[in-house]
């Protein structure tokens, strides 16, 4: 079964440093997402990406965050200057599209990257 792959699985970084979280979505999916889950809290939507541009973003996704699809396979989330409160599990997801080729919304999540800011 196709998977969404995220690397690294765990990253520790110092406050103020830049981090890049990497994701390889499912190859025929068109929509890409980042979500995060702070320990003990709910999963929160950060951003969605379609046709090489951001299609929707939450208020969490401020100027410190950016996303990129640098090539045909990777989808990255960059945090420019990390803060302690950025410590969370970051999930990448992809879906076929707004309606999907099969008429359904086929979301698939990656295993997550645990980001620890110290």
């Amino acid at each position, binding site marked *: 079964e196709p998977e969404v792959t995220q690397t690294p699985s765990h990253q520790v970084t110092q406050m103020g440093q830049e981090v890049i979280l990497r994701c390889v979505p499912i190859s025929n999916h068109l*929509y890409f*997402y980042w*979500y995060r889950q702070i320990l003990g*809290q*709910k*999963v*929160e*939507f950060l951003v*969605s990406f*379609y046709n090489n541009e951001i*299609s*929707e973003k*939450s208020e969490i996704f401020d100027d410190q965050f950016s996303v990129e699809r640098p090539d045909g396979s990777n989808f990255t989330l960059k945090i420019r200057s990390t803060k302690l409160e950025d410590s969370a599990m970051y*999930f990448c997801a992809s*879906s076929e*599209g*707004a309606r999907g080729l099969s*008429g*359904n*919304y086929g*979301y*698939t*999540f*990656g*295993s*997550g990257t645990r980001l620890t800011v110290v």
Partner: protein
Amino acid sequence: AQSVSQHNHHVILSEAASLELGCNYSYGGTVNLFWYVQYPGQHLQLLLKYFSGDPLVKGIKGFEAEFIKSKFSFNLRKPSVQWSDTAEYFCAVKGGGSQGNLIFGKGTKLSVKP
């Protein structure tokens, strides 16, 4: 704005007990509804989803959920839980108008005692 409420923060059951986890959402239009499970140390996995049609949806591992439009609810059920069902369960909703982002509930932690 859309929101999802999960009533129980932590549910503790013995094996073979029946399970029902509550989920209510607020959104006036057409919705797509999901239940995800997160086993310890693992990623989110889709249990089941509702788009349209039969409001009683059957998912993997013996789970089912019923969409009750009048109550804005999508409760998850399983007649007999197993120790391996110990996990966190998340209800999520997507409104028909948005690009595709999901709104998650806070999650319910299920602990099943052997």
